[in-house]
């Protein structure tokens, strides 16, 4: 096992990564989870994270970038502390998904893939998140919020601003 000296990650995450590369039949299988966990900790997948993950998995940085750029949840630029992801796919659209998206844009003052100046919220229009029967729905970071109305969205944002939002990782 190659543990990395001077890891850019927290000791907990570094230890988790040390373990992660050992559980699969092939080391490289740890790549997608690692990218997610790195993003959870850093807010995005930085160049330094790419370099360390490449080293840990023993692949080229180019390979990491090829994979990183494929998955839509992974980003290479910071987002807000709370990334609001509004689904506008068919089931949500039929029940007001675009209305919710518009409301978020107005309330947060940002557009698709933008971050508010205070860095608290960022907004993203996303494809189906698998909450079709409870539409319209959105995720704030990894938390689902269903059956939304503009009013419910306001309450949610306030909760997060007040630090009461859950933050599953």
């Amino acid at each position, binding site marked *: 096992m190659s543990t990395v000296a001077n890891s850019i990650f927290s000791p907990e995450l570094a230890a988790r990564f040390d373990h992660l590369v050992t559980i699969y039949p092939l080391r490289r299988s740890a790549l997608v989870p690692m990218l997610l966990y790195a993003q959870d900790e850093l807010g995005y997948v930085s160049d330094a994270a790419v370099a360390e993950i490449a080293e840990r998995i023993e692949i080229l*940085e180019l390979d990491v*970038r090829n994979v990183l750029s494929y998955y839509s949840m992974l980003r290479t630029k910071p987002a807000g502390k709370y990334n609001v992801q509004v689904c506008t796919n068919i089931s949500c659209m039929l029940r007001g998904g675009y209305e919710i998206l518009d409301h978020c844009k107005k309330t947060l003052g940002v557009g698709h893939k933008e971050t508010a100046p205070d860095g608290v919220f960022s907004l993203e229009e996303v494809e189906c998140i698998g909450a079709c029967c409870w539409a319209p729905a959105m995720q704030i970071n990894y938390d689902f919020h269903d059956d939304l109305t503009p009013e419910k969205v306001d309450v949610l944002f306030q909760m997060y601003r007040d630090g009461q939002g859950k933050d599953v990782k």
Partner: protein
Amino acid sequence: MADVNFIVDGKQLTAPAGTLLIEACKSAGIEIPAFCYYPGLSLQAACRMCVVRIEKMPKLQTACTTPVAEGMVVQTETPEIAQARKATLQLLLGNHPLDCPVCDAGGECELQDMTFKYGAADSFYAEPKNHREEQKWSPVVYFDRPRCILCYRCVRMCGEGMDVFALGIQNRGSSSVIAPNVPAQMSPDDLPHVDCEQCGMCIDACPVGALTSGTYRYKTRPWEMNHVATVCTHCGDGCKTTLGVRSTSDGSEIVRGDNRDKSGINGDFLCNKGRYAFDFANHEGRITQPLVRQTNGEFKSVSWEVALDLVGKKFRELRDTRGGKSIGVIGGNRLTNEEAYLLQKFARTVLGTNNIDHHRTADYVSFAQALAGQTNRTASLRDTLTAPSVLIVGGDPTIQAPGTAWNLRTNVRLNRAKLYIANSEPIKLRRQAKAFVQLSPFGYSALTSYLAGDDASASSAASDATGLSAFRDVVKSEENLLILIGSELRGADLRKLIAFGLTLPGAKFALLSDYANSRGAADMGLLPDMLPGYNPVGSSSPLATEYTANTTSGSLAPGLDMLEIFDAAGKGDLSALYVVNSNPVARYGVDAAALKNTFVVVQEMFLTETAALADVILPAANLYEKAGSVTNSYGDLQQVKKAGDRAGVRTDFEMIVRIADKMGTNMRALVPFGKGLRADMGQTRGAQSGEADRHSIWLTAQNLEPRLSPFDPLAILDEIQRLVPGYNILRLQLLSGNDQHLSPAAPAELVQITTRRDLVLPANDSLFTSGTLGRYSTMLSDLQHNESLRPSSLLTQIQTAAD
């Protein structure tokens, strides 16, 4: 595998089971179009152009992924299939810029050809095409993203073919893009770049104009060039490179090098030097007029007649007054065989000296002596692609012989060949090796002893005793092993290694050297102690006998070697030095003062360190501007064709002939042209007659016509074929541009294991240098500069890459 029978377009065909349908069809003359399919690289099934209809299959199938099967019935051109292909082309053309009139690939573009065939000219789209700025990935690789059709050939070529993995695929869907390994944000100039071997194979593989060459782009149109297939001058592999030439006011200019029809000994491969480094021919420092040093020390341009008169007169005078043994001759590694042969014959029979040498980059004399009397023991470059197992001792083919390295990687990848490597450096090919032993510095001698059975040498050979022992065991168990030897192995070590190899059944050998005709220079006797074909000077071989008959002074003893020539000069014993296509002053660090009392004649393209010390400089043509033949490291003979032309310069062949003429030489004795040549002029006939004109009889026996001109290199080729053992050339093979393998081993009875001086000096070229010549290639300089901009992280990275 067993053959299967199947029907394609009504034709009954047979092919080995497992053959891909697309290949089986190609063999039968049925061309199935494809963008992503590339023989030998992994399958993609991405472009959907090769779709065919196979009976009992619900959908159209891709011929590139379908193996033929017994009883299969296939249609390859039906209205349904044509429509599918047309629709695919329409989709591609939706975003593909139609800048064909200015695109480098215009006229050579697979997308153009297919559009022509399937007629997808109509467009349904009103939306503007996606535009992206072109990117300069390196001095030689440019990427025009909108033209890219995402066939992934470049990605595979770089990864699977080159083992470099510098290109990837990023993003997804219609945003997918080929991405190089240095992203913009990691680059000082904020632009993406490629950190790689700059071989240009990605450009070669690109079916469209998405990847273009820095040397060629926007220079000309393909149909405005003549395409001349010749042999690359830069390394010992002797790859075929096709030079695109265009007429200019002072000759014809080479504007492109590529692997146009992939018909050469190098198959699909061509490296950066073969592809880009032709540009020395167009360098502004090119000398195009003879220069004679004046009493004030400065050079003055003179006419050819004046220059040649002067050289001829001076050579004759010095030979007659101070003797041939006071003259030294140095030849080059990039001369043709004909020129090298002529040069040594001129030295030995006209100047009367054995003081002749060249920059030796491998010990071919020991190689030939060790294999004396053996047959079928030398390997062709082609064998590196097919040998079931290969042992490499010394050398670093990836850098020194990229074509060899390509073949070895391909052989491992496609045929699962077993590669064993012993080297004092962790060379890159070890990534493909089944076993690698890292030798101690200078451990080659000990290794050869160890292989030969001397277990006591193990500790001096390598630190890993267990590994070394296992290595020897596995190598010894191999049959038909191909043994590739680097220039580190010389003299006794080389002979010992070959002796070990000869104990293995079917083993074959090759010794790697550094330039286009390094091997030919040795074969042709640019050596003080060896006549052509490794006939020792003073022996009684037919060649030696014939030479002696023509020798003005009895030069039966070996002459001075390279270092002795300069020593003699330093002592004032060298009256004249004739340097043909070589730069010994730089290569051997010769003190300029040593030559101050020597009449120095240099045939050169540029004012090199050696030329700068000359009394007369004769402007020379390079290998791309002349015809003849060269022999690669392996002994594969190939034809060189004249591609470029430069007003004012002459070939080395012509210059030697002209100087000999000016010396009053019997030209027919030097170059056997015309009918009836020598003493008896045909009074006697018959092979039994020692007095007979052997050459005429030989020509008649070979059904060959006498050559009409002393400037015809074929006249000398005739003599090479007649006199040099091993050079029994097939003319048709040579003149049709094919390679043929020769093995000029020394005659067994003449083997003399003497203590020859080791004068091998490896060129130590990198991927981006090529001796003195390389310094005059702007592209190679650019690539060196490009390389210096980044710390070389690639090699360390690639070696840890998992797959």
